[in-house]
C-alpha cells in the first residue's frame, strides 16, 4: 500500500510539472505587463524597468522558469508584489480560510443530504422522494450569485441574524458555508438516491435479506456502504474543487479565501502568486483524489489501489 502510494505520488509529479508549465505559460500569455500593474498610471519607463528587474521579468522565459522551479524546490513559492509578502504564507492563510467554510459547508451538506438521499432512494416514488428530488434539482439550477444575494437579503438585511460579510466569529461563516454546501448537498442527495436505487436492485441485497436481516438494517448498514462508493468519489473531486475556493461566494461575502486571492492575483498579474496558486490548487486536487482512492480501497476492497 505504502509503496503504491509512493508510486502514485511519483506519477503525480508528472502532473505537477505539467501544471507548472501551463501555469507559467498562461500568466505570460496574458496581456498586461505585470510591472505596469504594480505601478501608478503615471509611472516613468525607468520605474517600470526597475520593477521588471525586481520581478525578474528581464530574464528569458527559460531562465525564469528554471528559477521558479529552483525556488520551488527550495520550498519558496515566490513573492507577491501585489500583496507585498511571500506567497507561501499568503496562500496558506487564504487556503485555511477557504478550508473553514468548505469543511463546514461540506459537513452540513453531508448531514442533510445523506439521510435525504438515502430515504429518497429507499422510498422511491414517495412524496419525500419527490421533495428530495425537487430540492436536488433546485440546488443544481440555482446560480450561486443569486443564492448568495438572496441569503444576504434574508438573513442579514431582513432578519439581522447574521453578519453580511467578513471574517470573525462563527456567525460570519454560516452564510458562506451554506452557499458552498448548497450545490454540493443537492449533488450528493441526487447521487446517493440513484446509487441507492441501483444497489437495492443488486442480488446481494436480496441475499442479505434472505439471511433474515431486517429491512432497516439492510438499508442503513449494508446497502448504504455500497451506495456511498460513488459519493466518496464525487465528494473527493468536489472537495478538491471547493477547496480551491469559490470565487463568487468569497467575493460576495468578502471572505478572504483562495478563490478571491486567485481573482486578485490574476487581475493584478501577480505572476509568481498565480503560478503558485495554480500549483497549490493542483496539489490539492491531486491530494484529494489520492485520499479518495485510499478511502475507496478501504471501503471497497475490490478496487486495488494504483
Amino acid at each position, binding site marked *: 500500500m505504502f509503496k503504491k502510494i509512493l508510486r502514485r505520488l511519483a506519477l503525480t509529479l*508528472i*502532473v*505537477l510539472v*505539467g*501544471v507548472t508549465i*501551463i501555469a507559467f505559460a*498562461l*500568466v505570460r*500569455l*496574458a*496581456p*498586461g505587463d505585470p510591472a505596469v500593474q504594480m505601478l501608478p498610471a503615471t509611472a516613468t519607463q525607468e520605474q517600470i524597468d526597475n520593477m521588471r528587474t525586481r520581478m525578474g521579468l528581464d530574464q528569458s522565459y527559460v531562465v525564469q522558469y528554471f528559477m521558479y522551479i529552483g525556488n520551488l524546490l527550495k520550498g519558496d513559492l515566490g513573492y507577491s508584489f501585489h500583496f507585498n509578502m511571500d506567497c507561501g504564507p499568503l496562500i496558506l492563510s487564504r487556503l485555511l480560510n477557504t478550508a473553514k467554510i468548505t469543511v463546514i459547508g461540506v459537513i452540513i451538506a453531508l448531514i442533510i443530504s445523506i439521510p435525504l438521499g438515502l430515504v429518497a432512494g429507499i422510498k422511491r416514488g414517495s412524496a419525500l422522494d419527490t421533495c428530495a428530488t425537487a430540492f436536488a*434539482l*433546485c440546488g*443544481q*439550477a*440555482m*446560480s*450561486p*450569485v*443569486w443564492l448568495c*444575494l*438572496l441569503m444576504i*437579503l434574508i438573513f442579514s*438585511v431582513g432578519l439581522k441574524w447574521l453578519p453580511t460579510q467578513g471574517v470573525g466569529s462563527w456567525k460570519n461563516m454560516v452564510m458562506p458555508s451554506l452557499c458552498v454546501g448548497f450545490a454540493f448537498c443537492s449533488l450528493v442527495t441526487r447521487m446517493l438516491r440513484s446509487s441507492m436505487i*441501483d444497489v437495492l*436492485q443488486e442480488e446481494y441485497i436480496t441475499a442479505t435479506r434472505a439471511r433474515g436481516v431486517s429491512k432497516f438494517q439492510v438499508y442503513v448498514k449494508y446497502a448504504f456502504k455500497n451506495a456511498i462508493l460513488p459519493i466518496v468519489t464525487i465528494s473527493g473531486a468536489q472537495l478538491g*474543487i471547493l477547496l*480551491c475556493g469559490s*470565487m*463568487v461566494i468569497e*467575493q460576495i461575502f468578502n471572505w478572504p479565501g483562495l478563490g478571491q486571492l*486567485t*481573482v486578485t492575483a*490574476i*487581475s493584478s498579474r501577480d505572476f509568481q502568486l*498565480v503560478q503558485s496558486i*495554480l500549483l497549490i*490548487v*493542483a496539489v490539492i*486536487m*491531486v491530494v484529494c483524489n489520492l485520499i479518495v482512492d485510499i478511502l475507496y480501497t478501504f471501503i471497497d476492497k475490490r478496487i486495488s489501489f494504483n
Partner: protein
Amino acid sequence: MNRKDFTRRMWKSKLFLIGLAGILVIAAVCFLSPLFVQFDPLKAELTNRLAAPEGIFGGLSKHIFGCDPMGRDVLTRLLLGGRTSLLIAFSVVLITTILGLIIGLLAGYYGGIADLILMRICDIMMALPTLLLAICVVAVMGSSITNLVVVLSITGWIMVARVVRSTVMSIRDCEYVKAARVLGIPNSKIILKEVLPNVISPVIITATQAFGGMILTEASMSYLGLGVPAPSPSWGAMISDGREYIATAPWVVIVPGIALMLTVLAFNFLGDGLNDILNPKNKD
C-alpha cells in the same frame, strides 16, 4: 435501444417530457422573440431607467417585467439573453461533445501510448479548476462570446472524453466488436458503426446535464466580468449586472434568475428523463 422502443419509453417518462417541453417552449420563445417584441433590447432609453413592471395586464407594449438600469425592457432583454445563453451553452456542449467523443473514442479503442498521453493531459487539466483556467484564458484572449465558448470548451471536453473512453473500453472487449473484426471490418468503420452508437447514450445524458451546467457557468463567469460583453444581454450577465439592484429594483435580477433556474431545471429534467429512458436497468 431502437427508435420504437425509445419512443414508447419516452412517452412514459414524465421527467423527459416536461424537460423537453420546457426547453422547446423556452427556446421557441427566445428564438422567435424578434417576431413579437416591441422594444429594442440594446438601445438605452435612459428616461425609463428602472421603470417598475407593469404586470402581465400591461400587454406587450408595456414593460411587463419592468426596465433595467439602462431603461431597456427586461422582457426583451431576457428573450435575447436567453438566445445568447442557450447559444453559448449549445455551442459549448456541441463542441465539447464532438471533441470529447472523437478523443475518447480513439483513446478508448486503440489504447496504448495515445491513451496514456491523453489521460495525463486530462489529469493535468483536471487538476486545474475550470473557472480558474477560464479566468486565465479570458484574460489572455479578452471576453467575447466566441472566446467564452472557446474557454468553456477547452475545459469541457475532458469530462466527455473520460466518459466516452471508459465506455469504449468496456465495449471494446464486447463480443460484437470482436465479431466485426472477425468479419474483417476496418477499425474506422468499427468505431463509427459498432462502438459509437453504443456510447452515444451516456454521452447524450452527460451533454444534457452539461447544458444546464454551462448556463450556470456562464453566469458565474459574468459575475467575474468574464462573460458576454455589454450591451448584448445574457442571463448570467443580467444577473450579475443587476445584483446592485436586488434590493431596490429586484425585477432586474429576479426575472433572469428565475428564467435561468427554469431552464437549468428543464435540462436537468431532460437529462434525468433520458437517463431513465436509456438505462436498460430501469425497466419502463
